[in-house]
């Protein structure tokens, strides 16, 4: 019959309509079940078995962000040690796809570079939130921030973040990324334990108690080994003869090149 398809479709919409309004009529609409309240704002996360789609009244209400959510990078300030974790190695600046990170490495009084950034900038306008910097940082010094409310009136210079704006304390990071933080701490502890064990072994081992004479003997041994190695490489001939042979080879090569050139010219 003509029109049955239309009616069927309208049935679907009417079902949706009724479901939505009956849900809103309830004392606590289903979207607030299981939501948290932080500073007077509701943080909502839709469970997978909740039918339909929740409306979130942003900015009064917000979504619950997953731990891996990534927006703009942040620099970690190690509160225990009281220093920046960043060593200005520049890996983040090198892997950054849009090249929005730039770092000035610090120097000491004599002008020698030290492992500490003097300036660290991220151009948030250019940043594409790929999180490569956080993935590749060997010192866990740069991580992705969850703060996405960054609107300002001018893009420059407000959206070019310097070190001060980027730096957050370690606790902030630990709160945002609890699982990852725990894993990193675990790894750090393991590595430190290994290092300590190694040092202990070193301290207890015979190497540390070696006398000055013993050290001299070792040096001599090493020198002998080096000599042997050199001889093995040069086939035992003495350096002068070797030099002469090489000269001869070079001369021959030049001769051949000249011949080739002449042939090519004809």
């Amino acid at each position: 019959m003509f029109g049955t398809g239309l009616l069927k479709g309208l049935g679907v919409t009417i079902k949706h309509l009724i479901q939505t309004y009956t849900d809103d009529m309830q004392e606590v609409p289903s979207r607030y079940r299981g939501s948290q309240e932080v500073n007077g704002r509701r943080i909502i996360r839709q469970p997978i078995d909740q039918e339909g789609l929740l409306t979130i009244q942003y900015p009064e209400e917000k979504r619950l962000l997953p731990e891996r959510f990534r927006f703009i990078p942040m620099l970690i300030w190690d509160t225990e040690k009281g220093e920046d974790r960043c060593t200005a190695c520049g890996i983040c600046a090198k892997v950054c796809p849009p090249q929005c990170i730039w770092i000035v490495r610090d120097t000491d009084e004599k002008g020698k570079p030290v492992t500490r950034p003097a300036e660290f900038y991220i151009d948030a306008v250019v940043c594409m939130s790929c999180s490569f910097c956080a993935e590749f940082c060997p010192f866990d010094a740069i991580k992705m921030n969850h703060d996405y409310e960054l609107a300002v009136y001018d893009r420059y210079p407000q959206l070019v973040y310097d070190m001060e704006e980027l730096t957050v304390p370690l606790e902030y990071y630990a709160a945002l990324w609890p699982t990852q933080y725990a894993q990193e701490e675990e790894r750090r502890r393991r590595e430190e334990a290994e290092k300590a064990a190694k040092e202990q072994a070193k301290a207890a081992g015979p190497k540390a108690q070696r006398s000055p004479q013993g050290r001299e003997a070792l040096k001599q041994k090493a020198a002998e080994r080096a000599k042997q190695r050199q001889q093995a490489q040069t086939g035992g001939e003495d350096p002068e003869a070797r030099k002469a042979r090489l000269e001869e080879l070079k001369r021959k090569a030049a001769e051949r090149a000249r011949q080739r050139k002449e042939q090519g010219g004809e």
Partner: protein
Amino acid sequence: MSEPTAVAEGTEQLPFNDAVPGAVLGTWAEETDKAYLVAPDKLIPLLTHLRDELGYDYLSNLTCVDYLTYQGKKRKGVQERFEVVYHLYSTRKGGGHIALHVRVPENETVPSAVGVYPGANLQEREVYDLYGIRFEGHPNLRRILLWEGFHGHPMRKDWKEAYYEQDTKPFKSRHPRGGYQFHEDKLPWGKNTTYPPGWDPDTWQEPVAYVPVSMAPHPVVQDPEEEERRPHVHTESIVINLGPHHPSTHGVFRMLTRVEGETILALEPEMGYLHRNHEKIGERNTWLMNMPFTDRLDYLNSMSNNWAYALAVEKLAGIQVPERAEYIRVIMAELTRILNHMWSIGFLLNDLGALQTPALYAIEEREMILDLFEEVSGSRMMCNYFRFGGVVRDLTPGWLERARYLAQERLPRALDELDRLISENEIVKARCRGVGYLSAEDLIALSVSGPMIRAAGVAYDIRKAEPYGIYDRFEFDIPTLPNSDVYDRYYIRLLEAREAVRILQQALRDIPGGEVHGPPAYASATLEEGFGTILGGKGGYTLRPPEGEIYSRIEAPKGELGFYLVSDGKPNPYRYHVRAPSYINLNALGPMCVGYKVADAIVVLGAIDIVLGEVDR
């Protein structure tokens, strides 16, 4: 003009030379992806032979490489600067491709393949636009992504963009003395910009780019009887611009149409409003850096784009993918397919004039899928989740249970509801049945791929024809429909989404535990692994695939998404080309719209399912 390069003797051994003598001159890139070098004057006979005799009826990819700054060892002594590349497939036999290279010196032309494969139309225009290579015999050879009057051809290696900094990333200025300059500080007419000789900004006028749309009659021949009956009515066909559309519909896209009354006589797509020269950026980047850029191609399906690129690089560099990561990839790709098809159905209804309600119903489940994506990758749309040799991070605890609930309960129910809402609807049928018809042969000749050809009865799906990943382990069908009209193009998407749900259920059932990364170096940082593994001797971010080239493709939701990559053994790809399905499917837009009404053109476009991020690149 340079001398053509002499090629190796013994051409009798090479294939096809018995049928087309002297066509194939040699081979190239034997180790990675073997290609044949073809003599330019024998190209058309060879293509005809391949199409007619050997069944290679589908021109998948046509692009060009500029070898000006090539640093590989294998091309020493070759004079010609450009190589035009063709990749042919057979939709009847399935299987792999035949790659052809035609070497072209600068300022010389190549015969156009449009006569043999009409689908070469847009791709040759793109090569002409970006490389300046002229195709002799092309019916409409003008710029496509850039505007007329654009100075230079940007994909050439010696072309430098404004604010040019360095040929390859990472830029040296960023570290350790931090020399970034703000674009505000640089004037566009500084030393970064070049001008044509004699160019004066005060007197310059943009060249008139108006091209009459195809060969439409103008004015329309009058019917003598009609003339007699109503002598004062004279009709003429006029050219109107449909668009540029609002970005929220399908993207900023314009259709240049010649209409007579309401009837379309000819239609041509005009694009490039979102062009950012993705491929040039890709050649500046390192191999790894391209991964987040692929998200921005078809921004609805970033997971599939990631996969296509990762797959191409893995083939080129010979990287293995662990079992669990393969399953995760399939799960992500099929979730992407479902959300893309639901999106496209919803917005097709939007184009029909059913504003918002069906579209919002259709993308309801998409939110749940995006939540799942966000949880594992950190972003809803720009996922950047795949890496060479795996995926970046393992799934979170509880993710699989939620995905299973989605695949078992919600998605089948949502698809059924969509079916009930739309499929039987008389208005949808009246507007869509019989609209935009094009035969299967025409569609294949026009290089159309994906749901479009399956709605024309061609059971061609790369997941079956040339399986990649672990698709050969799953049980699924390729749905086809016979009518090749807008209604079938809608309905095939629904059927495909159902098949995707089937694959999803199997993958979620079978997924093993274990590692998600391949052998260290390439797969990037994991949360559990430390410094040594991440860098692996700098391997993480300075991957250097061996010299060679590869063309690899996947069945993306919109069609065949291919990546053509050339490596010269350096940390940056020498050539990075995207075979974008939305772009090449637009070949068929004009032929499909002719003879229908203006309102139908919008629907036909909607049924092609384009995303301008991918069309314009």
